[in-house]
Each structure stands twice: as C-alpha cells, then as structure tokens.
C-alpha cells in the first residue's frame, strides 16, 4: 500500500467519524436526552442493590448496566447505520462512493466506539454519584483490555445485523432490535446465566456479552479486590476468538446481502 493509498483510506474511514461528530453536534439535545435516559435506566436498576443494602448486588448491577450501555450503544450505532442512511435519504450516495466496504465499516465502528465510550463514561459518573459506590479496588486497565476485546466480537455481530435493514428496510430494522433484546436476555447482564431456563443456557454460551460480563465482574472485584488480567485469560481468549470469527463473517454476510440487494433493486433510498 503506497503512502497515497494509505492517506486516502484513512480519510475515507475518518469521513464516518466526521459525519457522526457533526450529526451528534446538530442533534445534541436528543443526545443529551438519550444519555439522560441511559443514566436513569441504569440507576433505577443499580438502586435496587442500594435499597437491599447489598454492595455486592449493587456492584453486580452497576457492572451489568455499564457494560450493557457500552455494548448496546456500539451495536446499535453500527447495526442501524443502513436504516439511518435510508431515513436521511443518503444511502445511495454512500454506497456508490469509492469506499471499500471494510473501510466503510471500520469508520462506522470507530465512531460507534467513541460514542459508546462517551455514553458509558456519562453513565459511570452518574452511577457513582447516585449509588456512592467504591470502585477503588477495580482493575481498570484490565477492564479496558476486556472491553476492547469484546468490541471486536460486537462489531462483527453488529455488521451482520446491519445487513438486515438492507434485506428488508422495515422488518430488518425491527429484527436488529429483536436480536439486541435476545442478547440482553441471554448474556446475564443483571443476573447469573445459571438462573435462565435450561433450554436457553446453551445460547448464553454463544453471546460475547456473557464472557465480557464474566471477565469484567472478576476485574471489578465484586466482594473482593479485582483480579489481575491473567485471571481472565480464558474469557479474553474466547472473546478474541469470537472477534476473529465474527468480524470476517460479518463482512462476508454484508457483502453477500449488498450484492443481493443490487440484483433485486433493494439498495435504494426509499426502501
């Protein structure tokens, strides 16, 4: 890859961050509303632990709320990208631009990651203020590593889900939310997966969020000081493995669906 090609590729990936930043700026009142709602929703769950005077439960709920905010924001931003473009009417222009789909999805993921970090940080500050939690024992560098590792797997899932609104403009957007809801249910966000009905439990093993939550709860140190990163290498390996499979699979699925949409005439602004 020449320096010129590299520069062009970086600009193309940056285009999606640039667009996302300016759209966020223009829709700032809605962004504040969504962040406020995310905070109050998370606090409503975390305060159940405070009401029970159970720090261990509070920390379990807070960790679940924070990680779900992070992962679901990341997922939604990518999975709904095609649906958003259709609503804006810009879908055709984005898809006829000379951007390789990998670069397109990389740019989307970078913005989604930045957005998720800001959203999660907002919720974290709010939760600490509202619950008076002591997170001084948490292994923050370890948490960061696990979250980055799980980002890959979630990006892969989200890219796959982003193909759904290409298949069917309305039903596809609905299906991305159903899929997101299923992840919330099976991944043990607020409870251990062991309490799920026996027939659902095997599905929990397929969700990257299950391993993210398991590793993060150990690193936060619920009831005990946070463990070192070496104690969660099992979860980390599974997350990286899932990322290694899901990212290329997501790109493959998206590519196949895009080609199908071009054959059937579905790739249009009005759906």
């Amino acid at each position: 890859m020449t320096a010129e090609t590299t520069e062009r590729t970086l600009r193309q990936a940056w285009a999606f961050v640039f667009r996302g930043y300016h759209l966020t700026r223009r829709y700032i009142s809605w962004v504040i509303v969504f962040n406020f709602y995310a905070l109050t929703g998370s606090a409503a769950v975390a305060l159940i632990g405070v009401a029970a005077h159970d720090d261990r439960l509070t920390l379990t709920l807070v960790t679940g709320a924070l990680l779900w905010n992070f992962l679901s924001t990341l997922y939604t931003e990518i999975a709904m990208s095609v649906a958003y473009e259709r609503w804006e009417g810009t879908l055709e222009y984005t898809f006829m631009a000379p951007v390789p789909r990998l670069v397109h999805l990389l740019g989307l993921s970078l913005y989604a990651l930045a957005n998720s970090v800001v959203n999660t940080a907002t919720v974290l500050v709010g939760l600490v203020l509202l619950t008076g939690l002591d997170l001084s024992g948490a292994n923050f560098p370890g948490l960061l590593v696990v979250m980055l590792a799980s980002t890959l797997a979630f990006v892969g899932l989200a890219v796959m889900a982003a193909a759904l609104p290409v298949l069917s403009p309305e039903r596809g957007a609905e299906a991305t939310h159903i899929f997101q809801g299923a992840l919330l249910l099976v991944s043990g966000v607020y409870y251990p997966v062991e309490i799920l009905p026996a027939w659902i439990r095997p599905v929990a093993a397929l969700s990257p969020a299950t391993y993210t939550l398991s590793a993060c709860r150990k690193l936060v140190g619920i009831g005990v000081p946070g463990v070192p990163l070496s104690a969660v290498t099992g979860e980390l390996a599974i997350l990286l493995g899932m990322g290694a499979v899901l990212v290329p699979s997501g790109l493959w699925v998206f590519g196949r669906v895009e080609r199908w949409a071009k054959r059937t005439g579905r790739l249009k602004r009005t759906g």
Partner: protein
Amino acid sequence: MTSSTALAIEVRDLRKRFHKPRRLRRGAAGAEWALAGVSFHVARGETYGLLGPNGSGKSTLIRILSTLLIADGGLVRLLGHRLPEEQAQVRRLIGRVSVDAAFYKKLSARENLLYTALLYGLAPADAERRAMDVLEQLGMEERTFTAPLEEMSRGMQQKISIARALMVNPPLLLLDEPTTGLDPRSRRDVQTFLEALRLREGTTILLTTHDMAEAERLCARIGFLARGRLVAEGTAAELRSLAETSTLDDAFISLTGRPIAAGEDT
C-alpha cells in the same frame, strides 16, 4: 461506428427486470422488464439526453450506471471499465445528481461537502475550494454554506448537489432530472453551468429530464425510452423529422405513445 476507446458510455442489449412481491402479482407473470434490451453509446465529451415517460426505465438505467443495481444481462462499459466487475474503478470516475438532493439535512452545505470529500479520499481543503468555485458559479452566496440544509430552498439544495458531484472532478456526470422542481432562474443557472462545464472540462454528461427545451438546449443527441426500450435516437431535429412534427414535445408523444409527465420513475 465510434471506437470503444472514444466512448464514455457503452450500453448493449441491457436487460433488467424486477420481481413483484407475490401479493402484487396479477396472473402468472411474477416479473416485469424495466429494461428490455437497451443499446446506446455516448462519446467522450458529449451530452446525451435520455427522455421517457414515467416508468420507462430511465432511473433504472441511471442506477445501473451508478453501480447501485446489477443488470440481468447485456454489457455496460463506462470509460472503458465494465460493470459490475470494475465498479471500484467506475465509482472514482462518476458523479451523480438525482432528482432529490440527498443530504444530511441537519448538516450545513459545507459539512455535507466535506463529508463527501473525505469519502472520496480527497484532501478536504482542495475539495472545498473546488466546491466553493462551483457554488459561486451557480450564483450561491458564501454566507449560506454554514446554514443547515433543511433551511435552504430546493433550488439551493440542488445546486449544492451539483457541487458535490463535481467536487471529485468526474469525467462522467450522471444527471437524473437535476432541474425538476427548480424555479426558472435556478434552472437557467444550472443549464448555463452545465454548458460551460462541458466546454471547459470536456465532461461527458448523461441527462434524464422531462423538460424538452432543456434537452434541446443541452443535448447533442437524445434517446427516447419507452416501456424499457429505446424507441428512437438522434438529434432533436432528427427526432422531429422522424416523427414528422414541429416540436420535440410532439415528437416525444408520437414516438413513445405517451405524454410526458414529471414525477417518480422506474
């Protein structure tokens, strides 16, 4: 016969049909031909007009050339690159303006244009300078560039859409009813600009329009498309002569069998 290297657009026996959803099917036919074997070519630097009634297949054709649709059969070559195999190369060479200016309406003209520049991998400063030049030639004032697009008139949005297409300096411009809905002054601004562009840059232009006067003014040759077929082709004078009519409007109605109407197309 023009040699293929001198051609900007080469379309041969192009076919495309769309399958109707089962609930909309009547009888046994589950698919309709939007393009039923269309052939034409456009030389480099030529402005070619494609005119047809609603549902004639104009927009389908433009969408195939824009790499947004894959044809069922036939050959499409743009500036020597075959579609869909060489779509990555083609995308660098085409600019498109559609009937509705598709923008992020909350973003300003400047933000939308810079986004496009980055998307095409251009240096933002160079692309912005070029876009601003185009907008000034189209009679727009610089103070409007920072206002959200939703606050602009349709004419202003369409001019920005033209600036966006030209920002990448494409040798081939696909214009799908670019002046529909514009006031007479804006329409004239756009037409004058397109004439100057072709003369100055040698840009090849494929124009679909419902405006016969516009087609006569801008296009060296015109093709009439009806029911997915190219039913007549030639200069405006040749078409009038072929139909034995005094106006291009009448020639259109005579040769396509349908009156022209504005609106959504196939």
